[in-house]
């Protein structure tokens, strides 16, 4: 992460707004004015509480949710809005998703072989049947499953195994970017590390870039290179992982970090969670913008607040 000068932007969000309307009357803005870049080869984490819009952003990148304003570019090319057929295929092959709930994200009536082959079938990414089988076998092996699992159905697997099937299904497309939407939050604690380590291993082997969506800060600290904190549909702070943990600036981030449980009963007893005073109120206005407070550390604030934050840090 140190070679900050020579970084290539892989995915970029500019002024992204996503809103849901109930028949035109009630417009709910789930995400407002989101701006961030994801660099090739990094793990970019998006953290925030439930309902903050982090999954919505992930789904907008997967083009499940449409943008109401702004644009998303991938390798410099726009991928939001209407795309040509070839562009559509390219985006699907380059960006894949790992889903949150392994119990819900696999088709219960299909064999593992079909589930993993699905992407191959859609774009005919194999030379012949043997080639397809070989690819499926390799994908299973990479995630630590056995070729004999091909003829099994998802309900026969444990949560961790199912999530690994989900990972194999995404990676068989040989994507460049993987959107991981809380990939371990539905898993048993005992196998979370296994799946995280697997994701890290695959990232190194295949030179992947992850957008890691999570609410568990200790997990994020372990896996992420850079973190964006999102609150009520707005990105409030972006910084490198260690920077963010060392110098949390935005009051919401401070309160979020203070809520991380420590596996030490003495510290845990003394831990004083800081309540975010404006939890329900949206702090915004024309003066607000993402401002660089420390190198590569951006906070959503007014110029006066920025001054104050800088002063506090000194």
């Amino acid at each position, binding site marked *: 992460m140190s070679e900050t000068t020579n970084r290539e932007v892989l995915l970029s969000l500019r002024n992204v707004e996503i809103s849901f309307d109930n028949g035109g009357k009630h417009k709910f803005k789930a995400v407002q004015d989101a701006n961030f870049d994801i660099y090739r080869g990094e793990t970019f984490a998006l953290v925030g509480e439930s309902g903050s819009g982090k999954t919505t952003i992930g*789904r907008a990148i*997967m083009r*499940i949710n449409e943008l109401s304003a702004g644009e998303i570019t991938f390798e410099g090319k726009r991928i939001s809005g209407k795309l040509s057929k070839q562009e*559509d*295929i390219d985006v*699907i092959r380059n960006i*894949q*998703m790992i*889903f*949150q*709930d392994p119990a*819900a*994200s*696999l*088709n*219960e*009536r*299909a064999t593992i072989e*079909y589930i993993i082959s*699905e*992407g191959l*079938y*859609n*774009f005919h990414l194999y030379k012949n049947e043997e080639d397809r089988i070989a690819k499926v076998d390799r994908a299973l092996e990479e995630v*630590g*499953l*056995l070729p*004999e*699992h091909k*003829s*099994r*159905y998802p*309900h*026969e*697997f444990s949560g961790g*195994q199912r999530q690994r099937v*989900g990972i194999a*299904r995404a990676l068989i*497309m040989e994507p460049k970017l993987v959107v991981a939407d809380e990939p371990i939050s539905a898993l048993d604690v005992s196998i979370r590390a296994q799946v995280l380590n697997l994701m890290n291993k695959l990232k190194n082997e295949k030179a992947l870039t992850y957008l890691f969506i999570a609410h568990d800060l200790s997990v994020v600290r372990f896996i992420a290179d850079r973190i964006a904190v999102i609150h009520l549909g707005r990105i409030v702070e972006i910084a490198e992982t260690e920077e963010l943990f060392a110098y949390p600036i935005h009051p919401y981030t401070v309160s979020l970090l203070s809520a991380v449980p420590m596996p030490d009963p003495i510290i845990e007893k003394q831990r004083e969670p800081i309540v975010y005073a404006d939890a329900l109120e949206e702090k915004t206005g024309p003066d607000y913008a993402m401002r660089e407070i420390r190198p590569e550390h951006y906070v959503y604030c007014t110029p006066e607040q920025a001054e104050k934050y800088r002063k506090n840090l000194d």
Partner: protein
Amino acid sequence: MAREEDNLFEFADFDEKESEHIAAPRYSYWKSVWHTFFHSKVTIFLSVFVIALVVFALIQPLTSGYSPTDAPNINNAEMKYLPPSAEHIFGTDNIGNEVWNVVWAGARNSIIVSFVSTAIIMTIGILVGALWGFSKKMDRWMIEVYNVVSNVPYLLLAMILSYVLGAGLGSLIFVMCCIDWIYVAYFIRTQVMIIRDREYNLASKCLGTKTFTMIMKNILPYLVSVIVTYIAREIPALISYEVFLSYMGLGLGTNYASLGRTISQYRSYMTGYPHLFWIPVLVLAAIAISLYVVGQKLADATDPRTHR
């Protein structure tokens, strides 16, 4: 410093590959359906009964030589109104025909009409319903079509169509299909909407799977059980409906044998020669009820929650 307990334990070998192995026997959906269905002796008995009944009804009229336009014994007074006996199993009717032949010929047409109509209704209904449930654009205008079609008085339409098209097997099947498909489509549409946005369907979408493949691989396999339940209800309902339309004089014409018209004709002998009325009614009931029960058993067996 080594304690004594330390020697009691040693590291065991751990094979990661072995831990991934699934020991349970292989699962197959249709094998489990088969197994669950034939688990109960009552179901086996009923299925054999239904198949025998249907096959018999389909074959018997071909060998009996009975024709609804023909009455060879009409001038033979000794052959009229005979009660059921060893020689005349169901007795004979007012024009000297064997009730046995009359009933099976009628049952044959009822069964053919109902099976063919159900096949057409379900095929159109499932295809339209699946697309309807998937496409929000289609939903906007299909729901209006549904509102209009489902409010057309069924009997009125049946009357008009039978006058326009004439009273044949084909036109009766058309009459039965031309409204019912939209109920099936609406039912399937609702089912599709329930499972359309589940995460595994989003996953397929992210993999670029086309709508038609999603319908065939992701949606319909989940709906097997509800579709079988629907068919199990539809077949006996349409048999009864054919009987009803023919009874009202709207179904098959006089040159077709029909259970409905037979019952309608024999109605006047309910007190004098009760066997004439009750035998066709009971045959109708036997066919419809046993088909219904077996259908329900099959529907239960196709529900994976009943699999062990």
